[in-house]
Structure formats: structure tokens, C-alpha cells
């Protein structure tokens, strides 16, 4: 058993202590927005916030967490995808397949919390998540958009 605080709720999960947080989130908490990509903290598809810091949940065991640790997943980021980062992602149609995007959004959100007006170099350093579709150019633009550093494009009217 483990007591975890996920998205503001305390959950009693039937899970062995050596289970990675990723799998506790996906299989016990039932929140599947957090993705499995590599299991070795390389790709960032499993990124969540732990006490406000972005972490790779595949490489943190449930046993290492306290009930007071605050875990936020993509589902708990903002109601109706209303955060500045999510809105910027929508405005620039960032996702292609979308599989890595939960992790990208969590990483970008953490970056902007620490560095509200990031330079390209800040983005390079903070955004180490892998995207195989190649949405990087739009991710960069969307971070600048969310930071208010560039203007939103006009939506094409039909």
C-alpha cells in the first residue's frame, strides 16, 4: 500500500514499494495521460511535477515518496486545458502524434514557472524531452507564445 497525493487528492494505492511512480499513476491511479516511453529517464514522456519540479516518473519508486509530496500529472495541470502553455500549444497546433506532448507540456510549464521569459538557450537546456514526430520548432514557438514573447497567430477563418 502507498499513500500518494496526486492532483490534490490523497490516493491509497495497492502497490509494491519498488513500483515506479509512472506505473502507479497509470495502472493504479488510472491516469493514462502520463506516458511510458523508455523507462530509463531518457525521453521524458513520463514527466510529472513533484513538489513543483518536473521529474521523470519512470525512475522514481513509490517507496521513495511521502504522502505529503505533491504530485501533479497532465490531468491535474489546469481545468479544460486552460493553462497558458496548453493554450499556446493549441494556438500553434504543436502536437503531431501527441504521445510525448503530456511530458513536453509538463516540462515547459516547469520551465516557465522558474524562468518566465526564457531565451532559446534556456529552452534548449530545460526541454530535453524526445519527440520523434519532430514538433520541436513549434514547441519552441509555443513556449515563447506562452511567455508572452511573441504574438499569437491569427486563426484562419473559413
Amino acid at each position, binding site marked *: 500500500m502507498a499513500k500518494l497525493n496526486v492532483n490534490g487528492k490523497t490516493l491509497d494505492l495497492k502497490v*509494491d514499494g519498488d*513500483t*515506479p511512480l509512472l*506505473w502507479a499513476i*497509470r*495502472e*493504479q491511479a*488510472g*491516469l*493514462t*495521460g*502520463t*506516458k*511510458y*516511453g*523508455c*523507462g*530509463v529517464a*531518457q*525521453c521524458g*514522456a513520463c514527466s510529472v511535477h513533484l513538489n513543483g519540479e518536473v521529474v521523470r516518473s519512470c525512475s522514481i519508486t513509490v517507496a521513495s515518496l511521502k504522502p505529503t509530496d505533491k504530485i501533479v*500529472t*497532465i*490531468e491535474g*495541470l*489546469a481545468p479544460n*486545458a486552460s493553462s497558458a502553455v*496548453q493554450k499556446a*500549444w*493549441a494556438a500553434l*497546433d*504543436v*502536437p*503531431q*502524434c*501527441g*504521445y510525448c*506532448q*503530456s511530458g513536453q*507540456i509538463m516540462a515547459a510549464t516547469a520551465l516557465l514557472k522558474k524562468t518566465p521569459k526564457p531565451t532559446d538557450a534556456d*529552452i*534548449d*537546456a530545460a*526541454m*530535453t*524531452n*524526445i*519527440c*520523434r*514526430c*519532430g*514538433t*520541436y*520548432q*513549434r*514547441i*519552441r514557438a509555443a513556449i515563447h507564445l506562452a511567455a508572452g514573447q511573441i504574438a499569437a497567430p491569427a*486563426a*484562419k477563418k*473559413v
Partner: protein
Amino acid sequence: MAIAKNVKISRRGLLLGSVAASGGLAVGLRADGQFAHAQKAIGASGDELGVWVVVRPNEQVVIRIARSEMGQGTLTGLAQLVAEELECDWKNVTTEQITPGQSLARKRAWGEMGTGGSRGIRVSQEYVRQGGAVARTMLLQAAANQWNVPADELTVDKGIITHGKSKRTITYGKVAAAAAKLPVPDPKSMKLKDPKDWKIAGKPLRRLDTGDKLDGRKVYAIDVKLPGMLNAAIKACPVFGGKLTAYDDAKIKDMPGVRHVVRVDATTVAVVADTWWQAKRALDALPFTWDEGAAAKASSATIAETLKEGLTAEGDNGANRNGDVAAALKDAAKTIEAVYATPFLAHACMEPMNCVAKVTADRAEVWVPTQNGEASLAAAAEASGLPLEKCEVYKHDLGGGFGRRGGTQDYVRQAVLIAKQIPGVPIKMIWSREEDMTHDFYRPISQCRMAAGLDDKGSLVALEMRISGQSINAYANPSVIKDGKDLRQLQGLTAEPSDAYIGYTVPNLSITYAMRNSHVPVGPWRGVNTNQNAVYLECFIDEVAKAAGKDPLEFRRALMGKHPKHLGVLNAVAEKAGWGKPLPSGVHRGIAQFKGYGSYSAAVAEVSVSDRGKVKVHRLVFALDSGHVVNPAQVEAQVEGSVAYGLSAALYGESTVKDGRIVEQNFDTYELLRIAEMPPVETVLVPSGGFWGGVGEPTICVVAPAVMNAIAAATGKPIRSLPLKNMKLRA
């Protein structure tokens, strides 16, 4: 759309993608939402207008999509094409996926479902536009009937039908029910719009499928939950062709959550547990013995030796020849020679291979990320032993495809073989990343020996290319190889006309292929053989231009007079990139062009190489002529995507073989491009009309050669093998 009637469909036939049909079976179910059980019988509700469109009384327009969506934007593009002819209001458009079972039940009414070869739009465009026109015609006829006026007196805009003479209007939703009762006109009789009159197609509209990718709502197959579902982790003998001889399940059967240890087939075992993590943990603890077989001695070095032999061997497995290369090389004022090589590459889709399967005595169902739903259906039937009619496939949008999830549905077969042994229980099988990298269908390995002859004016008079390497068809589709000839491996280098023909005219030309297969399974990998072949041709052309003392752009132009579309993109990219204009100190340009998937691509790279040999790509500029453009914003996204995939491969990509197995098992050893190395990408779309080319794959093949040529310009030394991480670029 070609539909053969009265042909008995076979599982094998579907696997081969043959166009065939059989009638008469129950309509299947559609996977929808978290529990994937929304039961909706497509076409049975009597509200459809032809096969592609349903209009609801509340004005909602449902457009059916048969192709798979894996991020490439085909879903949105196809909907734009249907909506254009339908003349509906775009904001009312939603889409729904056709299942392979539904399609089969209606004699493949929605045509081919396979989504590969950059065909999603270009092969479907005509019949989906006709489908939109059919629905519009029926809706207008229903309004005409209601008002008792001729249909040709009606006009329509954004789903509002107007009779100008009587100043009456009515919306699509109001006449949809009556329209659905009318006879369906012959789609082929529909007159389609000239693309210059498009209002919805051809525009950079937002994707229809972005919303649920922003908050974790989207349900990929790996996220499917079914009542009573168990989870499976799987391991196959890491040596291709090896066998599983024994495993000791007593050692793990008491581990938490473990329910079953299942032999899947001769090479593979699976552990089934309450959760996937429990299954994976137990599998890691399971003792195995393998019979690794003869291939256990193979390595990258032994495979390279086999390929090397093919570079000079007699005979060929396909050729493109004109003139007399041997004589022209002998008489040339100057000759240039080189040997190039490219490695095996894994796909590394972000979503690892997975499939949920449920099998009972008379039904097999799978929930799966697939590029070819009909191949998934065939694999489910084959593995379950049930007829096609008793199988169904619920296609989930893919977390990356890139060719890995196409015709060869190994992961569906495995999931069904597991589920068959635990009847009635849904089994979610997920490959670990390590399994995914160990059992891919890799981009084929090859080498290329080249020779060129220049006359005394520095003009190219002879070009010889000898490609030796593995054949995708020999592995995946041997029946298409006739008389030992396999031109697919010469993709982009064959003669006109073809989807991918060479854009240079050389008076004496010999391009030949020597098939040299290894035990490593191979398959299509975004861009397929255009990748390797463009590296060979386009980097060697730069070497030859340098030997001729000519500018690489001018040298190419002189060879392209008879290929105006190839030349068109080359000129467009040179102009956009400012070819010949000054660059910052230390930055150098490289250029490349190639044709693939019916489209013409060219790129210019701006690159610097540090004193320690570190490459930085500062800018990449592309020109693409795909004939028509359905959504320019999404085409640009595909070009950007091709850079990330292509540059990853050029910089780092390599699946090496040791002791018969693949060495790189995860992203710590199979390095992939991250945002810091993604250069700014600029794209010029130059659709010249009159043909429909692909978009997802064409540009990837010019990424590596443009960058390699820029590196050579920076260092003075040609790059003749990949990946670049293995090259010492500075002495």
C-alpha cells in the same frame, strides 16, 4: 476506387493488401472512449449520405476516415477534402474512424486502409472528394424535392441551401433525413472543383485532433482499459531466428500479481499479471535458455563483408542503365571513385509496440495502433484461427508509426496468441522499450560503390552506382520480386516514369542493385530507400562537382534540363536560402535534391563544424512540390518532422549487430535528436499542379545529404558513411 466484386477474400490476401471483397457479415463495433465499447453500427442507422458523410439534424457533419492517423495530419486533410465538395460549414465537422470489419462487411466500401508510402491523401483524394460531392448532391436534391424546384436552381454555402428565385433557405441538418432516403448517385459522375476554387481545402486550418492531446484525455491503444483486463510483458529470443528452448516459470509464479506464464510461439514467452509493471518485473526475473542458432555468430562486421562482396560481384537484382558506362569511364578526362555506407536503423516510435486482444471461441478483437487496419485484421484471424468475419480491429491513433506499424503486424499476432490461451480475458500486451529496439524491422543496411567520369570541360559523361544491401521485399513481400529483380531498393534512382525517378540526365549511366540479405529483419522506415540512395547520389554528385571545379548548384542544374520539376524545387530552395550569398564566418552551405513518393524535394543546409569536430546545423531550407497542397500548415509540420527524424539518423542513428542481436536497446545508447539540436526550418511550398504527390516522407531524404555536403564544404573532406557521431570530422 477499385473494388473487385465476387472475389473470395483471404487472410493472406488482406495481408498482401490485395483489393478483394466478400459480403455479408454483422457490422462491427467501434472503439470509442476509455472503455472502448461505444457500440455504433456505422451505416446501419440509415442516416448516411453515400459512405463518407453523415449529417445530423443538429447540423453536425460526420466525415468518415479510413486511413490511420499517426500525427501526420491525414485525418484533418481528408476531412478538408470531403468538406470542400460537401460545401458544409467547417466548424460543424467531426470525424469517425471506419473499422476494418465494417469495411469488409460492406465490400471494402471505404477502399484501402493502409497508411504508408505517403499515400493517405494522394491515393484517397479523388474518391473522398467524390464522396463529399455525392452527399452535397443528395442534400440539394432533398431540398429541391421539398420545394418542388429543379435542383440546379439551388446554391449552397456553408451548409445553407438557397433557392434564389423564391428567396428560400434551408440548412443541411433539416434535409439530411430526407436526403439519406434518396438513391446514391454514382460517385464517378460527380464533377469535382478545380483546386483554384477551394475554400476549405488548400488552407492552413487547425487540426481537428489537437484538443485531446493537450490534457491527457486521448486514449492511445496503450491506454485502453477493459473490464477484467490483464497485462502482458513479452520477450522473444534476442537473436533473430533463435528459439526459446526452456524457461523456469516456477521461479516467478509466486511473484505479486503474476497470473500466467505463456509460451507465445517458438521464440517467445509472455508473463501475464494484474498490472504491466508486475508482469515486466516477473519477466525480468524469469530464467530462460535460448537456442540462438547459426545467426548468433553474425555481427555488423560480418554483414558488412557480405555487402562488400556485392559491390563488385557479377550480375544484378535490378538496374537503370543507358549508354556505355565502362567505355565512357575509360575515355574520361578525369574519374572520381568512392564507396559509401549506411547502417541499420530502428524506428523508435515514442509509443512502444502494444496491442490489446480479447479472444473467445468465436470472436477475436484487438485494440491497436496500426498503420494498416486490414493487415491487423488478417493477423488477428491468422493467430486466432478464426475467419475474418469473426474478427474486429479497433484502430487507435498511433503514438508514432514511421513504417513500423504497417503490413507486418507481429505485435497483433503475439497479443492474439497470448489472449487465445486465456479465453475471454482482455490482455494488454506492451513491449518494453528494450523489446521494441531489439525486435524492430530495421531500415535496411547498404553500401554503394560509385564512379564518375568528367570530360575535359568538367561535364559529367559517366556515372556508375552499385548498391549492395538488404532488400525489404525479400523479407516482407518476396512474391513481388520477379526474376530476381527488386527495383524498390533503387528507389529514387530508377528511370522515368516512376514515383521516384532520378532527376539527372547522364549520357552513360549504370545503376545496379546487388541483393545481399542478412538475418536481421528489415522494413520501411520513413522515406524508406530514398534515404540511403539520396545520400549516395547527392553526396557523390557534390564530390564530382568539386572535382570538376564547379559550384554544386550549377553542376546539378546542367544535368537537369530534362527534369523541370526536379529543377523547379532546386531553384526554389536555392533562391529562398540565398545560395551564393555571404554567410557568417565558419558557416557553410550544402544542397541536395531528390524525388520520392511522387513529390520533388530539395534542401539547403547551413552548417558549422567546430575545431573539435562538433556539427551545428544553423538553418535548413526546403522546397517541396507535391502537386497540390491540402493544408499548408500541416505540410510544413511534416517537413519539420522529417528534419527531426532525418537529422537524428544522420547524427546518431545506428543499430549495430553483435552476437547476432541488436546492441542498442534504449535511448541511452540509441541517441535521438532533442530540441537543442533542432535547427530552424524554413519551407517553401511550390505545388505545380497536375499531379498528387505525398508529403509525409518526400523531404526526409534530402536532410542528411544537404547537411553532409555542408560539412564537406566546411572541412574539405567528403562524408561517406553514417552516422556522423562515428566520423572524425576534424583531424
